[in-house]
């Protein structure tokens, strides 16, 4: 049994302008100790997917449906008390902006100790010892002295390390990381990713890595879900995806990666803006931006279908195999590089 099995997850927000379908029928599963990457533009629904799984969306005006089975139990139907016991203990989360995700008026030690005491019946002293252990594990220098410092006394990278320590402090089975490196500078990004890979090996947690950066996916993920406009556009093990991407949106994402080894004049960009989720385009949701658009794309939305020679690979595009082979071949060297 998969650790987390999400089936046909939908999250709709009621707003004054109508219903925003932020997540509209997303399915995936996460195996024990594996890393799932969810990639997509801002507003594609990747963060909302995870907030829904964690039960962290505001209750008012949110409608969720589908299933999110955690070790066989549906997180969406769980009592809030039961869900609270799972949050921060079995499933932990790291957020995008470490500058604002820590409480500014509590010392980081107090915030980490709180995370332990909420789930473990241990003394404050033991909790503090565990806190120090974790701060050292995430590479905070002079942890004994810094444990009583406040968030504003740490740099962005250090704060994200603190967030990671807080997430891992109760040895979670699943760590959800919502763009953990987006707010950090490039060198710090690499450090944080390395740290996460290393800690995953030590702690054995599964990871859901939400990102808009395929470079991050290539580095850390086992499986990839590409989301576009609240739906899954393509889904595959990471090697298969990079070897033979099937969806024009994925091609666009790959083409917009900066590269060192090729002499590219200009980065390819995906034309236009992501669609409004208030009333998404008819037919394929990507068709207004797709350079390969056909008549059928404007009327009929493609199903998420298995790729014929690749049983673990799913894609949602009407294009014929020949065109896909030709177009994807232009990008395959990218996959090799990644």
């Amino acid at each position: 049994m998969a650790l987390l099995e999400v089936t046909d997850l939908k999250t709709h927000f009621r707003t004054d302008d109508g219903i925003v379908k932020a997540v509209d029928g997303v399915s995936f599963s996460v195996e024990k100790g594996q890393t799932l990457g969810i990639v997509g533009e801002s507003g594609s629904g990747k963060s909302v997917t995870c907030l829904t799984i964690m039960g962290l969306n505001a209750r008012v005006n949110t409608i969720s449906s589908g299933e999110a089975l955690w070790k066989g139990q549906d997180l969406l139907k769980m009592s809030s008390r039961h869900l609270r016991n799972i949050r921060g203990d079995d499933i932990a989360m790291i957020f995008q902006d470490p500058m604002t995700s820590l409480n500014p008026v509590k010392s980081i030690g107090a915030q980490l100790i709180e995370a332990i005491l909420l789930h473990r019946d241990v003394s404050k002293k033991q909790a503090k010892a565990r806190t120090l252990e974790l701060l050292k594990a995430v590479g905070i220098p002079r942890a004994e002295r810094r444990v009583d410092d406040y968030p504003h006394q740490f740099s962005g990278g250090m704060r994200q390390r603190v967030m990671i320590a807080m997430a891992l402090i109760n040895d979670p089975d699943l760590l959800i990381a919502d763009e953990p490196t987006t707010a950090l500078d490039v060198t710090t990004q690499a450090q944080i990713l390395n740290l996460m890979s290393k800690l995953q090996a030590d702690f054995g947690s599964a990871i859901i890595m939400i990102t808009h950066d395929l470079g991050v996916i290539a580095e850390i993920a086992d499986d990839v879900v590409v989301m576009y406009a609240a739906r899954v556009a393509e889904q595959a093990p990471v090697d298969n995806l990079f070897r033979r991407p099937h969806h024009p949106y994925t091609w666009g994402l790959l083409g917009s990666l900066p590269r060192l080894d090729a002499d590219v004049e200009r980065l390819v960009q995906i034309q236009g803006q992501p669609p409004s989720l208030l009333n998404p385009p008819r037919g394929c949701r990507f068709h207004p931006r797709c350079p390969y658009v056909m008549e059928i794309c404007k009327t009929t939305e493609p199903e998420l279908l298995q790729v014929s020679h690749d049983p673990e690979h799913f894609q949602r595009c009407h294009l014929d195999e020949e065109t896909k082979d030709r177009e994807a071949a232009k990008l395959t060297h990218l996959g090799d590089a990644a």
Partner: protein
Amino acid sequence: MFRYLIRRLLWACVLFLVITVVTFVIFFMIPVNPAKQACGQRASERCILNAKHTLGLDRPLPIQYLRFMDRLVIHQNLGKSFVTRRSVNTLVLNAAPVTASLVFGGAFFWMLIALPVGILSALKPRSLLDRLAMVFVLIGISAHPVWIGLILSYLIGFKLGWTPITGYCDFFNPSTDCGGPVQWAWHMILPWTTFAILFTALYVRMIRANVMEASHEDYVRTARAKGAPEWIVIRSHILRNALLPVVTMLGMDIGVALGGAIFTESIFSLPGLGSTALDSIQLFDLPVTQGIVVFATFAIIVFNLVVDLLYAVIDPRIRLA
């Protein structure tokens, strides 16, 4: 910390000088001759000259100001009233406890109501309580304290006869014909209510806004993601942050109000700083006006300093240097 304190105290001195100069100058811009007033109607030339000399008005303005500052700083003496010849120190010392009773009692009540109402309406926006609170805020901010005070004293004091209509009773030793804590509180009920309504409205609105803002912060989501139950999220993450600015506001408002809650005091005939100041202005009694302004400035400066120091204690982000 020590350097900060010194710097603040120096600034306080500058502020103090500026405010005394301004009140002094404004007073002398008014085309009234206090000496003539002191001699009453149909004053003789001689009397006026005499009065001018006794009041020190025959000297140049800067000298008058310097003499005033000399008395104030060296002898802690605010001078004597032009009108009654009573010591201004005594006047201020008699009036200050009345105003303090009004302000601190009022502050107690407005916080007692504004805290729970503001917090609850922020946590349940658009609920019945929230809507009622917002109606109250609108009325409380719009209605003038004089109107509220008159309505209250007419309905509750006069028609129903539940409370005294006017007057003040000493908390400790009765210098007036009534005294003791019970009589004191009994007489203060209407003034407290009148005084507190505006501030309750302002504070409900401010606390509601702060709590709402804080409850959307990322660290609140982090706390929920940790698995913290709702009451811990509210108490130690939302409120801990949302109420910090309220401390500042409270300190400053109390400081300002100590200068005299003029409207409330006049309606209920409380012999506090506000009504004393009002009387002295009407009589062009410069030393008394000046004395109360000095005292009010002092109160505001002290309360601001206290708030700043307190803030450094409760907010770890602020380090005084």
